[in-house]
């Protein structure tokens, strides 16, 4: 267990070596080196995990203090790592999935000129994420939190020569900053009340917290989590973050980084336990995000945008679980979601590469014939997220919904909203699979004019919103223009290389079987629940067996109904899709646009006022002092004539005056 420092050390080494020698290693050696470092980290995690497994359940905490980071009076922050069931579980799936995605990236980025730079960022990301998870105090977690935010910014804007990409990166950074503000104030509050920022101390102190203080803390940390984990009202950066390379979307914006908010909430469950109505806020924000994002996903045409909104929606489920004290379900869904969402994203990346970087699903179709491995694994991902038993998504989602049903008087309402979300999820994923892998080969039709019309629409949408996004929209149009010229009617899609399909197959395997982590049939089968038991304060009661069974059959029925509706609409053409894909949904309920409008209108005026105050009043005082000194200097300048004899006369007169003064004083 003393090895835990190696877990983040491997990717740090990878980062440093690649910064220094990345170009020298070249393609694809730099990628293999980076992958090996992350794999080393995964292997170390496995060793620590087995070590932890062999100790008594109650003693599964190991802290390693590397050095004192910031000693400042009574405040100290140690640079210490903590291995406990929660952190090691996070490490396991973070490093595992990161290894697969590193390998995938070797294939995906094979034609990119900044190949080694990509792996520098990726290794830095893994190191930050592991620090976030393993840190034994809030400040170290915050360091990792900011590190992953930085990597997210760098990787969204990886192709930064395109204006749309770099503004998406900025948007992600700004949205996260709002959340970070909450996180920081939360840390201050914990320090003032608890007197320590170590998780162990917080946990010991938590029962003594006043309800009001605990509520404030929970809400502040939740604000941080809404930024990082893309919840209402800060979720708008995540769909835009799809501008980055697809492996980045899979690793950071689906599987790992965005779950940091959920991790933080679960880590702080002793505080949430005392936090009263803050939990209701979390649950309602979670379920509202899940529902809103699912409705938006129904009308998206970009293959990655669908998955992005789907991610926001699934993260909403996790917060619903956190808000109903169902932490095990939250972590369970985090893991299963990481598997199938990473799978879906990597699958979409494979499709995008195969289709000459076209991302519009309206120009796909019948791809299962050309890309059998991608199609097969994507379909497994689809069934998993739709909640079809016995695939993993069913078990975790059902546990969240069943837990929500049992959560106080509002429980059934939360459950119902969650169920509607599940229906929508099944529907939009069916739509995506049919549009991509079934039906006619639509890129063979003369879709040129149509696609241009779509691009113009987007430009108009940007125009209407505010001044600011216009440039973005225009850039996006240019981009789309370039891209779909790559996709000509005589294009022949081909399956991706093995470095890309191998991770797909592995992830598909996990997406099928990950449900066995936590089966509800007996106490013994609830492995994840037992594993996490020492970390979590308080008991969560699931509904009893008959109710549970009823809820589960309801969930299964919902998934199947959703899939059937999708099948009827998109395969059998029983209804006009445009009746479902309303433009209000396609444009995300205008949430993003109203932010832009507000920030571009009253918001901008306010910031202009602040800027004016700074430039006129604050700068005015500073400049005034400078100007005043200059004026006085100019006034008394002639005294310095440079003629020595004048100075000598001055001395003389002065000496005489002094003499007179002294003499007269003495005579008095």
């Amino acid at each position: 267990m003393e090895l835990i420092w190696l877990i983040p050390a491997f990717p740090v080494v990878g980062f440093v070596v690649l910064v220094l020698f990345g170009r020298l290693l070249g393609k694809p050696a730099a990628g293999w080196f980076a992958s090996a470092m992350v794999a080393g980290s995964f292997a170390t995690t496995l060793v620590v995990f087995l070590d932890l497994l062999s100790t008594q359940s109650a003693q599964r905490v190991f802290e390693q203090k590397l050095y004192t980071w910031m000693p400042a009076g009574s405040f100290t922050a140690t640079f210490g790592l903590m291995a406990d069931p929660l952190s090691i579980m996070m490490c396991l799936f973070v490093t595992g999935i990161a290894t697969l995605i590193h390998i995938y990236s070797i294939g995906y980025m094979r034609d990119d000129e900044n190949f080694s730079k990509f792996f520098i960022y990726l290794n830095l990301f893994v190191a930050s994420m592991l620090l976030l998870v393993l840190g034994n105090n809030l400040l170290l977690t915050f360091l990792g939190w900011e590190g992953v935010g930085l990597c997210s910014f760098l990787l969204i804007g990886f192709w930064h020569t395109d204006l749309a990409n770099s503004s998406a990166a900025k948007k992600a950074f700004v949205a996260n900053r709002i959340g970070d503000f909450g996180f920081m104030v939360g840390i201050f509050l914990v320090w003032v009340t608890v007197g320590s920022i170590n998780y162990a101390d917080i946990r010991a102190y938590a029962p003594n917290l006043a309800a009001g203080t605990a509520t404030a803390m929970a809400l502040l940390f939740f604000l941080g989590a809404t930024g990082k984990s893309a919840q209402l009202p800060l979720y708008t950066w995540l769909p835009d973050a799809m501008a980055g390379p697809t492996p980045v979307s899979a690793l950071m914006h689906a599987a790992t980084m965005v779950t940091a908010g959920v991790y933080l909430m679960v880590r702080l469950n002793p505080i949430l336990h005392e936090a009263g109505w803050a939990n209701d806020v979390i649950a309602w924000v979670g379920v509202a995000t899940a529902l809103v994002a699912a409705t938006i996903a129904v009308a998206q045409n970009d293959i990655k945008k669908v998955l992005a909104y789907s991610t926001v929606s699934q993260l909403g489920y996790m917060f619903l679980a956190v808000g109903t004290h169902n932490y095990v379900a939250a972590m369970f869904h985090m893991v299963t979601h990481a598997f199938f969402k990473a799978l879906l994203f990597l699958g979409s990346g494979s499709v995008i590469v195969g289709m000459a970087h076209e991302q519009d699903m309206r120009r796909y179709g019948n791809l299962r014939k050309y890309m059998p491995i991608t199609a097969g694994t994507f379909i497994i991902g689809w069934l998993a997220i739709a909640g079809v038993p016995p695939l993993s998504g069913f078990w975790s989602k059902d546990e969240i919904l069943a837990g929500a049903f049992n959560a106080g008087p509002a429980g059934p309402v939360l459950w119902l909203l969650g169920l509607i979300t599940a229906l929508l999820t099944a529907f939009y994923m069916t739509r995506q699979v049919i549009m991509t892998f079934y039906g006619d080969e639509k890129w063979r039709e003369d879709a040129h004019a149509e696609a241009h019309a779509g691009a113009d629409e987007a430009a108009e949408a940007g125009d209407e919103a505010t001044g600011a996004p216009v440039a973005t929209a225009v850039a996006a149009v240019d981009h789309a223009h370039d891209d779909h010229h790559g996709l000509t009617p005589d294009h022949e899609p081909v399956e991706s290389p093995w470095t890309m399909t191998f991770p797909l197959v592995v992830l598909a395997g996990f997406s099928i079987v990950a449900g066995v982590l936590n089966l509800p049939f007996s106490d013994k089968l609830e492995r994840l629940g037992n594993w996490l038991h020492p970390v979590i304060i308080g008991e969560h009661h699931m509904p009893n067996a008959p109710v549970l069974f009823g809820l589960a059959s309801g969930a299964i029925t919902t998934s199947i109904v959703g899939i059937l509706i999708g099948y009827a609409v998109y395969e059998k053409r029983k209804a006009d899709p445009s009746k479902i894909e309303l433009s209000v949904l396609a444009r995300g309920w205008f949430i993003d646009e109203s932010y832009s409008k507000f920030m571009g209108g009253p918001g901008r005026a306010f910031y202009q006022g602040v800027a004016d105050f700074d430039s006129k009043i604050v700068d005015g005082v500073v400049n005034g002092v400078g100007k005043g000194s200059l004026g006085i200097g100019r006034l008394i300048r002639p005294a310095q004539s440079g003629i020595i004899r004048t100075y000598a006369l001055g001395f003389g007169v002065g000496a005489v005056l002094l003499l007179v003064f002294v003499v007269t004083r003495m005579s008095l």
Partner: protein
Amino acid sequence: MLELTETWYLVLASLIFTIGAVGLLVRRNPLVMFMCVELMLNATTLTFVTFSKALNDVGGQASVFFVLVVAAAEVVVGLGIIVAILRRQDNADADDLSLMRG
């Protein structure tokens, strides 16, 4: 016989000091001005010695040593500057050297 009291010394010192001070103000040759400064210094030194004798206090004579040392150091620097100035420009007088005018 005229007795040589302290007054004589003090009168002599003030005369020398006055000559130095007036010379400093009226002459323009840097070298002469420098010599005038030396005169003033030596006048002061003479006063120190006189009072030392009159008050029977050795402190005054100790001060003289300090003044001598400082004067020696000052002469080295001062003469160096003057030589440098005269090398740059022959017949330079003090009023020409007003580079530091504000």
